[in-house]
């Protein structure tokens, strides 16, 4: 692409979670849409600043629970009533109370598997390379720095304006994020 932007985005490091939240709020107010914050631990209230749709992890987990639970019950019902009816102590073939433990176990198993794989699918992981990994400053985002990055894909993206935004918000350092 001839007119592809030269950089992935412009990023800045902040010393405290409050500062990065302030910067994220300012970026949102100025109309930036492709903004993301990177923090060493989950900062309360930060994700809400980006006004994204709610996480779909709970829904995926619920689907997993329903699939696992109903699948388990159906399997036992099919085995004990249709495929291999067998008289155990005079109990009816469809003796549902004895099916509950396995239904519960497989509900939990399936819901956990859905939650786990759903989590990483929604995060678009594994993705071993990301432009941010090229910058030395980003390494501290998993330690004690809070990084905000405005991506060049943003329609409003402008190096000078972003730089100014970060400065006003009180950043520690600003750095360009090259594509590779």
């Amino acid at each position, binding site marked *: 692409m001839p007119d592809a932007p030269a950089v992935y985005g412009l990023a800045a490091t902040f010393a405290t979670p409050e500062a990065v939240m302030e910067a994220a709020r300012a970026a949102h107010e100025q109309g930036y849409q492709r903004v993301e*914050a990177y923090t060493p631990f989950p900062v309360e209230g930060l994700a809400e600043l980006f006004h994204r749709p709610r996480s779909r992890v709970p829904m995926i987990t619920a689907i997993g629970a329903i699939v696992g639970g109903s699948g388990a019950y159906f399997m036992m019902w099919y085995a004990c009533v249709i495929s291999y009816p067998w008289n155990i102590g005079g109990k009816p073939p469809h003796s549902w109370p004895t099916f509950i433990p396995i239904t519960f176990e497989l509900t939990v198993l399936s819901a*956990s598997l859905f939650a786990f794989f759903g989590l990483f699918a929604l995060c678009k*992981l594994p993705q*071993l390379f990301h432009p941010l990994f090229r910058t030395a400053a980003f390494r501290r985002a998993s330690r004690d720095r809070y990084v905000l990055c405005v991506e060049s894909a943003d329609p409003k993206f402008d190096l000078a304006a972003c730089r100014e935004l970060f400065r006003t918000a009180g950043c520690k350092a600003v750095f360009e994020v090259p594509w590779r």
Partner: protein
Amino acid sequence: MTATNPHLAEGGGDYLLAPGHTTGGVSDQISDVVLKRPLGYGWLLGFAVVFAGTLMLTTAIGYLIVRGVGIWGIDIPVAWGFAIVNFVWWIGIGHAGTFISAMLFLMKQDWRTSINRFAEAMTLFAVACAALFPLLHLGRIQFFYWLIPYPNSMYLWPQFRSPLVWDVFAVSTYGTVSLLFWYTGLVPDLATLRDRAKNPIAWAFFGILSLGWRGASRHWEHHQKAYLLMAGMAAPLVVSVHSIVGADFAAAQVPGWHSTIFPPYFVAGAIFSGFAMVLTLVIPVRAVYGLQNFITDRHIDNCCKLLLVTSLLVCYGYCSEWYMAWYSGDPNETFVALNRFVGPYGPAYWVMLFCNCVAPQLLWFRRVRRMIWLVFILSLLINVGMWLERFIIIITSLHRDFIISSWGMYTPTFWDWATFIGTIGMFLTLIFIFVRILPAISIFEVRELVHRSEEGPNA
């Protein structure tokens, strides 16, 4: 960081986290145990010993496969010997890990943060040891997959009305969910190690394992939701697993087993033995790796209180057994209860009562809870006591059958002991490897705790 800080100073200079920490400092200290600390002679010597145990286990398993379960002391009437004793003991130990990581997380107990990673690892390794035993006990190990329902040419299904089949599902679900939960919590910390690694092999290792975690706010949003949901599912799961193990016994008509108290009493016993194992492991590890500022005397104190509570629950279970033996008026039940005290395995019963009921009473005293060496000894005694409890339940109930002509004795053989001690070796081998290659304390949760502490009492 003031004295009125809610997370740091409670009970007068009593810390959950020693003061003066920064988010950067805690990241460095925990990750340096993995990245910078050289392999000492102490670790190598310890590893050599426990790895010898693992080799003994593989030898014992190899010989078992060649010769069959006849090499063990099991026979009629005691067909459930060490294998089931060890299975129940190991799976019980795992329960404290899930209790710490899931239940205490849901109840927002901040003190769990420094020990949850370690306790979850303990759970995984204990479940791995536990899961070996039913498979080895099958006799024909190559047919283990017959336990799993699958379309087969024999047109057969497992018997879904049996607690023994429930156990297959409970234990495999428990192992899988524990692994997923543990790994979900590990990913952000693996990213920290990736970013701090200087060695290219370590960098690649942690880079691949951390899956490219960037700590983006979107990532954390999904992560926290998934973590909470998994904790919410793991909490009832842990109760269900040992209840089902209890039902394995309670569903049989054997006197001494056929009792509705078994599921809750097994769960209490599981958490009791698990907390004892947590203390047995954590006390030496924090001393060796200098982690006393994360795993403080407050943590030990809290674990001791839980030990005391669960010890009382277990004692209640014993009392209930005695009471029911008397109240039922069933001569076989009464005989089993008395036989435990004065029968051939009587000494084991008395030792068990001392370890599980008498010795833990010392924990009522705050001074005892602060004497770390004494707590360590108590934790070892409880481990022994809980192992003996499972031995008593299984062996004494079976060795005196309904008809006197079918009475028998159970004597463990060399191979029984080799398999049992071998699993302890395997368990410790995994712990030794774990503390060297993975962060033993959840770094991102400690960072969060440090941050919340900095915000002060009104935050």
